[in-house]
C-alpha cells in the first residue's frame, strides 16, 4: 500500500480546489502523508518542527515590510498614481504597455502594488476606456474586453517579473525547496535566470497590447 502516501497530494488538491482553510489544509496534508508512510507521531512532529525551522528563510521577505510600510504611508502609491495619470491622450494599448513596464520594474524592486485593487479598477481601466471612447461610444462587449485586458496585464506583469527580486517569497521558496530536495540553489541564481522570461513576457505582451488596439477599432 505504498500509494497510500499520496493521500497528502489528494488532500492538497481537494483542499485548495474546495477553498478550505489553506494553512489547515497544508498542515493536514503533511500529517496525513507522514502517518501514511509509517512515521510515529513524535517523529512526525519533530520532522514538521525541524522542517519549519529549516525553511524560515522563505519568510525572510517579512523583514522588508517595515521599509515598504514607511514609504507607503508617505505616499508611495500616490506617487505612482501621479506618474501614471500624466499619460493622457494615449491609446488603450499604449496605456497598458506603459503600465506593464511600470508593473514589471516595481516588481523587480520588491514593491507589491496590489495592482487590481489600487491601479486597475480606479485608474488603468477608466483611462483605457476613456481613450478608447474618443472615437465614439463603446459597446458593452468592448467595455468588458477592456476591463479583461487591463486585469490581464496586471497579472502578467506581476507574475513574470516578481522572481527578479531576490527577497520575494517565490524566489525564497524555490531556493529553500531546492535545498531540501538536495540540489541547493541561491536566490541570486534564480533571479538571474528569471530575467529571460521577464523580458520575453514583456515583448510578447507589448505586441499583444498593440494588436488589442487594432481589435478595438473594428
Amino acid at each position, binding site marked *: 500500500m505504498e500509494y497510500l502516501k499520496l493521500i497528502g*497530494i489528494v488532500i492538497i488538491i481537494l483542499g485548495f480546489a474546495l477553498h478550505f482553510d489553506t494553512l489547515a489544509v497544508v498542515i493536514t496534508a503533511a500529517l496525513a502523508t507522514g502517518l501514511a508512510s509509517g512515521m510515529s507521531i513524535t517523529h512526525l512532529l519533530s520532522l514538521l518542527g525541524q522542517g519549519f525551522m529549516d525553511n524560515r528563510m522563505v519568510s525572510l521577505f517579512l523583514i522588508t515590510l517595515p521599509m515598504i510600510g514607511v*514609504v507607503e504611508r508617505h505616499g508611495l502609491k500616490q506617487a505612482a498614481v501621479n506618474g501614471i495619470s500624466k499619460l493622457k491622450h494615449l491609446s488603450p494599448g499604449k496605456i497598458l504597455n506603459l503600465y506593464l513596464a511600470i508593473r514589471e520594474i516595481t516588481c523587480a524592486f520588491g514593491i507589491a502594488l496590489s495592482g487590481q485593487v489600487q491601479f486597475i479598477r480606479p485608474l488603468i481601466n477608466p483611462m483605457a476606456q476613456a481613450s478608447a471612447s474618443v472615437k465614439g461610444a463603446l459597446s458593452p462587449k468592448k467595455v468588458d474586453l477592456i476591463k479583461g485586458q487591463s486585469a490581464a496585464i496586471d497579472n502578467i506583469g506581476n507574475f513574470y517579473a516578481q522572481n527578479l527580486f*531576490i527577497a520575494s517569497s517565490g524566489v525564497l521558496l524555490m531556493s529553500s525547496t531546492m535545498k531540501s530536495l538536495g540540489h541547493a540553489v541561491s536566490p541570486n541564481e534564480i533571479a538571474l535566470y528569471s530575467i529571460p522570461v521577464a523580458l520575453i513576457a514583456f515583448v510578447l505582451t507589448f505586441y499583444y497590447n498593440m494588436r488589442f488596439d487594432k481589435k478595438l477599432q473594428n
Partner: protein
Amino acid sequence: MNTNNILEFFYMLIGLIMLFSSIESFRDKENPARIGTGLFWLILAVIFAFGEAIPSFIVGILVVLIGVLSLFKQVKVGRIKEVDSKVAEKSAKKLGAWLFFPSVVLAILSVSIGQFTSLGGQVGIGIASVVSLIIAIIMTRSSGKTAYHDSERMVRSVGTAGILPQLLATLGVIFTASGIGDLISKSISGIFPVGNHLLGVILYGVAMAVFTMIMGNAFAAFAVITAGIGIPFIVMQGGSPIVVAALGMTCGYCGTLLTPMAANFNSLPVALMEMKDNLGVIKQQIPIAFSLLAIQIVLMYVLAF
C-alpha cells in the same frame, strides 16, 4: 561570527516584528478573533526568535496549533489603521519619485552583498532591509512610533497568507522524507522514458501548469512536481537545478493565468470592475499563457542542458 549567527539575528528581528503584530492584534478591540490572532503572531514570534533553543518536537506542536487557530477562523486581519490619504498625498507631492529610492537600495544592495561578498544572499537581504529602512525613516522624517505602526500594519495585513510559502516548503520536507518524489517518478517512468531530455522538460513544464490550474496555487504545485518530475526527469539527467527552479515556477504561473481557482487574480477583478463575463479576464490571458508555456519549455531545454 559566521553567516548562520548573522542570519539568526535577522530571524530574531522578524520575530520582533511579529511580536509587534501580536501586541497590536491583542489590543484591537474591534477584532472578534483578537485573542486567536494575537496568539497566532505570538507563536510565530517565539518560533522565529527562539526556535533554535526549542526542541523540534515542540516547534512541530506549535505549527499544528497555528493550523488549528486558522482552521477555526480564529485568525483575522482585524482593524488596521489605513494610510492617511491626506498625509500621503502631501508627502507624495514633496518627495515624488524619491519614494522609490529605498526599494531600489534594497534590491541592489541585497543582490550585491550576495554576489560580491561571502555572506550570501539571505544575509544580504537582511542587511539591505535594515539599511533601506533607515534611509526611508530619515527621508520621510518618521518617528520610531510611526515606524513601529508601519511594521505591525504591514505584517498584520499580510496575515496568514504570509506564512503559507514557508508551510508549503515544510510540506516539501515531509514529502521528501516520505519518499513521495521517488514514488511519483517511479510511477511515471513506467509510462514516460527517463533520460529523454526534451520529453522530461515538456512533462515538467506541462505538469507545473496543469497542477497549478487544479490547485490554483503555483507555490503548492512547485514542491510536489519538482520533487516528483523536475528532479528525476531533468536534474538527475544532468539538467541545471537553477533553470528547473526558475522556469518551473513561471510555467506554473501560466497555469495561474488559466484557472478560476486562482480567485485573487482572475475572479477578484471580475467582481471589482463588475464585468459581465465571469471568465473575461482568463479569456484575455489564454493566448499569453499558452505561448509563454511553449516558449518556456523550449527555453528550459536550451538553458538546462
